[in-house]
């Protein structure tokens, strides 16, 4: 019983982490059809901004989050401008999804190593946003910091969903994903929308990075593991579906939590990647894509 509660509690924590990181990837893939491999780096950068603001300048938590949002927003926008924008015009000539997969990955390599040169290899401690623990059951507890993360990741997902469903710009973002030409002919400024969307997604990852920093620390490679997990979540969630991502994040979190207790920590990632493999092998049409395209 205690185990079950603990597994659940851990699953919620992990799920929130993965949700926070994957949400931006989902937004970008769902709207722009780009599997943005630089999202992990945005988590890393967010962590450093959090460290800089909270640990070295002692600003309050809200300001730190705002700073991380602004900085990673700018960085995400810049990332789009160098790695995606030049390719939009050639959308039909190149394999857009794959080429942007590689270019954003190149950005990730670049950012990681710039961070390494600038900050050095050490990990830095990012203070928690909220302190204290909530006692759950027989000594099982969950920290308020982690609870805040869980709440924020759900709120962000709902908020993002509302933004996409209810606002003019939200609609435009979705429209661009579905028919680029039609959107352009309706005066949607695609050349600005792409960078803004990537900026927004990166900013979400950056905010996530501040939270993660308190658990994982800030370091040049702090984005690698979140990225690997986010990939799992995004694929499981059906690539581009916000609600799917939310479910998948908690499913992955629970699976990981369960594996750690019942099977062993070392087998978590192979099991999760094995699950992805199995899904792609056995239900290739279950996710997206029509059989006629896939058969060839």
């Amino acid at each position: 019983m205690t185990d079950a509660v603990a597994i659940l509690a851990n699953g919620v924590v992990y799920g929130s982490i993965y949700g926070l990181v994957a949400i931006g990837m989902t937004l970008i893939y769902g709207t722009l059809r780009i599997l943005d491999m630089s999202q992990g780096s945005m988590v890393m950068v967010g962590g450093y901004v959090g460290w800089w603001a909270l640990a070295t300048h002692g600003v309050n938590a809200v300001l730190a989050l705002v700073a991380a949002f602004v900085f990673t927003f700018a960085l995400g926008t810049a990332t789009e401008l160098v790695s995606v924008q030049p390719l939009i015009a050639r959308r039909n000539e190149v394999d857009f999804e794959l080429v942007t997969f590689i270019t954003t990955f190149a950005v990730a390599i670049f950012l990681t190593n710039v961070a390494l040169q600038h900050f050095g290899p050490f990990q830095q401690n990012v203070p928690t946003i909220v302190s204290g623990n909530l006692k759950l059951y027989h000594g099982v507890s969950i920290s308020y910091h982690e609870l805040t993360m869980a709440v924020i990741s759900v709120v962000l997902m709902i908020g993002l969903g509302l933004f996409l469903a209810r606002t003019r710009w939200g609609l435009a973002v979705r429209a661009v994903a579905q028919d680029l030409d039609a959107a352009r002919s309706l005066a949607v400024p695609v050349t600005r929308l792409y960078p803004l969307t990537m900026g927004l997604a990166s900013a979400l990852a950056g905010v996530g990075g501040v939270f993660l920093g308190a658990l994982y620390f800030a370091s040049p490679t702090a984005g690698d593991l979140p990225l690997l997990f986010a990939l799992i979540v995004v694929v499981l969630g059906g690539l581009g579906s916000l609600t799917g991502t939310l479910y998948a994040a908690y499913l992955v979190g629970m699976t990981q939590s369960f594996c750690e207790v019942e099977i062993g920590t070392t087998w978590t990632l192979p099991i999760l990647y094995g699950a992805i493999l199995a899904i792609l092998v056995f239900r290739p049409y279950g996710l997206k894509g029509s059989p006629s395209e896939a058969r060839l």
Partner: protein
Amino acid sequence: MTGTFGAVTPGRWAMIAVAVALAAVFPLVYHDPYYMTIIVTGEIVLILNISWNFVLGMAGVWNFGQLAIYALGAYSSGWLMLHHSGVPVPLAILFGGLFSGVVSVLLAFPTLRLFGIYTSLLTFSFAQVIQYVAVNNPHGLTGGSFGFPEVPGLFPDLGQTAYLRAYYWVCAGVIIASCFAVAWLRQSHLGIALRSVRDAPAYTAARGVNPRAARVAAFGLSGFLAGIAGGLYLSFEQSFTTSQMGLTPMSLDVTMLVIGGLGTVSGPLIGTALLTVIQTKLINYPGWQLTVLGATLLVIVVFVPGGIVGLFGRIDRRVRGWVAEDADEAEPAPG
């Protein structure tokens, strides 16, 4: 008009012959063990890249599982070298190639049912699973992250210079053979079918080509060569660590291929050589190696889509188009 099956002109043959001859005598006049070590390591990477290019560039399947296939070649050949020491080392390497080829074919079946980004995700997941399982070192088969236990290698009794020289030649032989094989395959029935499938899958199927069969064959051949490369790495370096499957080598290799030009015979050659030289030059600036790598990859993919070979190819094509235009003019006006 000639048949244009990539006929090689006598002049070109002569240049190839000169290049091969130069490559062959090179280690006789050059001994520096440091650069020889780099060159031999580069040769092994080149073999891997040639194999990857075959499936990535020629067959047009975005397979990110190649490093895992390479690792399986190393582990399986190492298993023979270590536990069945009666088996000659070359046979063990060959076994690694065959094992990898078979795994690659098995990987091909689910992969080829998918398209686009899903292909990459499936193969990437495959690579991740293999890597993590290898790190977990089940039954001591892989040596985990510390590396495969020392194996005798091809030339256990040679001194350093001779050892490096011998490996240089072995690898160069494999490279030359696989370059010719790839060049030949490119113009072979299979190669033409593969390129056609890559260019226009539905059309090609409607002309009688079985796209799946052609691509499975490509996976098999590519996996075989990757396995050989893995076996050579293990036998040359006498160890193999799981970090060889990590994201850094993967991005390095992809960069080499993209820079050189995907789907061409000389692309991997140029890309591998160029990046090896850059890396070597930057050895005193450790952090910069990967920073430069990321930036280069980005610039090439965005601004030079065909890589260096593609750049030459475009110029060449422009000239050819120019000639074709003349041919048009020589025709009677249409209508």
